[in-house]
């Protein structure tokens, strides 16, 4: 007896219990129940199979608006409860069955033209397209039958007929839906012997690269452009095999959300132009971080390879950016590699910068700061500053005796006392419940593209009315341009304006004030007028808060939370020592000639040319920092790439400087500075959770200001270039040259 047979005997005796042995033996079993018809009928219906509960696909959740609307369907014999009106595909997702699809996208309208999602439904003669078929009570859906598989294989064969075999040079390779699904439903050989269809590539601008031969006409991009981006640029031309996606006439895609078509394209027809042939997606390291180019704080994933940021893609966050990001967020990353400050520098007596060591640079700054009077010291935090560094800067300057710390964009006299006065109280996702919008001096399309997408979504879904006060602009939804200046607001407040009745009759009115108003002298007066409107329209109630401020920059909310408020409005003009922490939009003309300027930042942008000492800091992709977005949600960035050159984290520089200056700050780790932040503003350490404001504007003292008649100005002149990083970016420069409307 050989060793093998001993082993097999031992195995058999282990695996087979006595009762199962006859199952394995091929034996003829007589179907007694078929012979005995009455006995078969007497048998009850086959009980529901005892299947283990499956987890829904991608965390799909069921929400029953009305409990009696729940219906039950069976997916592969497994019963699921779903609300009425759901499609078969959604029912399958809740049952934990992932149906292959190309054209279906949960945030777009249903097209039903790719036919990949075919499933078998009992009593239906043909396989049905599950994405377009509403689920009916008691429907028995079969997703893995030979019929469904054969149908999908047929669809796949037709799709691959005209699809080029260029996966090795395709940028979508590795993250391509067609590639993945052809592994399951594709044939290993083709039967197609004719020549493949070829389509001329379209020029959609500097961001989206097209290889239209790869297109499978799922029309996701067309639906995205018309429904979410709100531009009628893309469309379908031709019929049958001549069908192609394109701009009807040769033109560029002018949307601030155009980059998202790259993500929703299931094949490599639309890919990122700046990323083209730069890397393959499996080489990249993903870091889940936060966008800082606007105040929305979109959730992003920074894909890096070694020390380089290769691309930025969105991350799902239903409360903030859903699954979209703006073009600025997606494509500004090449600015992180240009114009970087990498060495501490001191301007010599000849006016030239010389690279020096950190020790020397800090010693010079500490020496000078002790030579000036305490009230002549001013600190300015920049647009991209994180809360940690602003905390350190404020603590340091306070210890030096100065209380002139401000954050650019917040204006000379910001209101930091009432949190409800500078955040979006409705919350971004809450905008979907509003039925009338009043935009005051804000152009959300350029100031916060994701908020604008939310408003557009609401307008599209519920026909909400939008009134807009400000300079003429192009919002991509129906709106009423009420006026350009504050006097229109007074008319609405008085009730003499036709729009005020719309506002009064609204159930959930929503007023959004732009942060550009912070820079105006009559800011308090405007706010009190807006509050009067809110009062009349009952916009602030226990169940609804429709009084919002839309901020412009990532640092603004955290700066106000931390109380970065200047002591006097003329701080900069009368200063002798100015500490610019990444502040590049400060009016350099206002800085006195004899002032000593320290610039701490990551890009050689504008202020470095006025600086006396340059301290290189790390950009948001290289450090851990807390940012509060416009709705008051604190989020943290995570370092994705190493810092460049000799740069250091912002707060560490300030901490080191405090030691050299002899006023040591009492924290030397990130957790220590965060606990310091917690004592000042507890919401800053409550990461990823929106902290609503407690008190409303009603506590505010009456303003004595008079409204001026100066019309509102546009807060953002160029959507693509707003901060040091985007101004350094070549792609953003191309975009603003080609796409921004003049």
């Amino acid at each position, binding site marked *: 007896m050989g060793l093998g047979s001993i082993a097999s005997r031992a195995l058999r005796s282990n695996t087979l219990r006595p009762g199962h042995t006859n199952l394995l033996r091929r034996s003829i079993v007589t179907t007694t129940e078929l012979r005995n018809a009455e006995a078969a009928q007497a048998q009850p219906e086959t009980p529901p199979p005892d299947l283990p509960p499956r987890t829904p696909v991608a965390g799909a959740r069921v929400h029953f608006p009305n409990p009696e609307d729940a219906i039950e369907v069976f997916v592969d014999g497994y019963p699921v409860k779903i609300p009425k009106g759901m499609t078969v595909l959604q029912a399958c997702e809740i049952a934990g069955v992932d149906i292959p699809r190309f054209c279906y996208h949960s945030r777009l309208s249903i097209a039903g033209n790719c036919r990949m999602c075919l499933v078998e439904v009992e009593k239906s003669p043909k396989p049905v397209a599950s994405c377009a078929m509403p689920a009916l009570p008691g429907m028995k859906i079969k997703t893995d039958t030979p019929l469904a598989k054969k149908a999908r294989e047929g669809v796949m064969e037709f799709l691959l007929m005209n699809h080029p075999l260029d996966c090795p040079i395709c940028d979508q390779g590795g993250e391509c839906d067609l590639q993945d699904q052809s592994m399951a439903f594709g044939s290993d050989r083709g039967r197609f012997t004719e020549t493949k269809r070829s389509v001329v590539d379209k020029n959609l601008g500097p961001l989206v690269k097209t290889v239209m031969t790869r297109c499978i006409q799922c029309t996701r991009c067309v639906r995205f452009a018309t429904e979410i981006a709100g531009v009628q640029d893309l469309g379908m031309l031709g019929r049958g095999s001549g069908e192609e996606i394109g701009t009807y006439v040769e033109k560029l895609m002018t949307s601030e959300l155009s980059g998202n078509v790259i993500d929703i394209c299931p094949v490599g027809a639309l890919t990122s132009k700046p990323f083209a042939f730069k890397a393959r997606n499996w080489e990249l390291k993903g870091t889940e971080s936060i966008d800082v180019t606007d105040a929305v704080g979109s959730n992003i994933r920074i894909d890096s390879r070694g*020390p380089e940021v290769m691309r930025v893609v969105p991350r799902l966050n239903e409360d903030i950016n859903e699954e979209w990001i703006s073009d600025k967020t997606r494509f500004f990353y090449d600015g992180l590699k*240009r114009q970087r400050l990498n060495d501490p520098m001191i301007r010599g007596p000849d006016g030239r910068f010389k690279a020096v060591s950190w020790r020397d640079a800090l010693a010079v700054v500490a020496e000078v700061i002790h030579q000036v009077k305490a009230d002549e010291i001013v600190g300015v935090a920049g647009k991209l500053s994180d809360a940690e560094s602003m905390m350190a800067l404020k603590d340091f300057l306070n210890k030096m005796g100065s209380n002139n710390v401000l954050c650019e964009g917040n204006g000379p006299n910001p209101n930091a006392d009432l949190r409800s006065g500078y955040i979006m109280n409705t919350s971004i996702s809450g905008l979907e419940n509003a039925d009338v919008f009043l935009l005051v001096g804000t152009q959300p399309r350029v100031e916060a593209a994701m908020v604008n997408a939310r408003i557009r979504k609401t307008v599209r879904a519920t026909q909400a009315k939008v009134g807009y006060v400000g300079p003429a602009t192009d919002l991509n939804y129906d709106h009423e341009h009420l006026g350009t200046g504050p006097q229109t607001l007074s008319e609405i407040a008085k009730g003499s304006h036709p729009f005020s009745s719309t506002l009064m009759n609204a159930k959930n009115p929503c007023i959004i004030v732009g942060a550009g108003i912070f820079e105006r002298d009559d800011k308090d007066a405007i706010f009190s007028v807006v509050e009067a409107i809110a009062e009349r329209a009952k916009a602030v109630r226990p169940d609804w808060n429709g009084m919002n401020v839309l901020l412009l920059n990532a640092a603004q909310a955290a700066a106000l939370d931390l109380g970065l408020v200047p002591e006097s409005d003329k701080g900069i003009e009368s200063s002798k020592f100015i500490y610019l922490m990444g502040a590049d939009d400060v009016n350099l003309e206002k800085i006195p000639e004899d002032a000593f300027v320290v610039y701490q930042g990551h*890009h050689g942008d504008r202020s470095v040319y006025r600086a006396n000492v340059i301290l290189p800091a790390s950009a948001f992709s290289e450090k851990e920092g807390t940012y509060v977005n416009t709705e008051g949600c604190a989020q943290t960035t995570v370092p994705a790439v190493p810092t460049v050159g000799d740069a250091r984290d912002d707060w560490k520089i300030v901490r080191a400087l405090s030691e050299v200056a002899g006023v040591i700050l009492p924290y030397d780790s990130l957790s220590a500075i965060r606990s310091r932040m917690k004592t000042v503003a507890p919401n800053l350490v409550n990461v990823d959770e929106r902290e609503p404001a407690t008190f409303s504007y009603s506590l505010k003292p009456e303003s004595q200001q008079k409204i001026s008649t100066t019309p509102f100005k546009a807060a953002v002149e160029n959507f693509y270039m707003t901060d040091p990083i985007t101004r350094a970016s070549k792609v953003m420069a191309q975009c603003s040259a080609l796409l921004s409307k003049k």
Partner: protein
Amino acid sequence: MAGVVRNALKSIREKGLRNFFGELKEEGYLKCLLDGNLLQTKMQNIGATLVGIDKFGNKYYEKFGDTQYGRHRWVEYASKDRYNASQVPPEWHGWLHFITDHTGDELLLLKPSRYGVEHRENLSGEGDEYIYHSKGHSLNPGQRDWTRYQPWKPTKA
């Protein structure tokens, strides 16, 4: 042996004693006193036929008769002090190692002119400046810059 002495005397007569010694030095006869290998080569050369001289000045000899077959071809390197086998160019390598009976000069006629870099001897151990360093090596004078960012340059005075 007598012939050698006769030849030597003849050249002294023709060139003068000074030139003769100069030539002796150039030919490496002084080095022979310390370098046994060279001395042996020099002694072997007596009566051997000079088959060819390559472009580096290495001399290739052949002698049948009293030499053992397989040791009947040899080279006298042009360099008398630092010589090594990598100084033999490829065209002579085959002849020297009995791979072919064609001499290097014959083989050079077959060499296409469009390719082939100049033969270089192996300089390992001769010092860092002679050795090949990769593009990232710090000793490579044209070391590649792997910096992935472009620093800001203070241009304005």
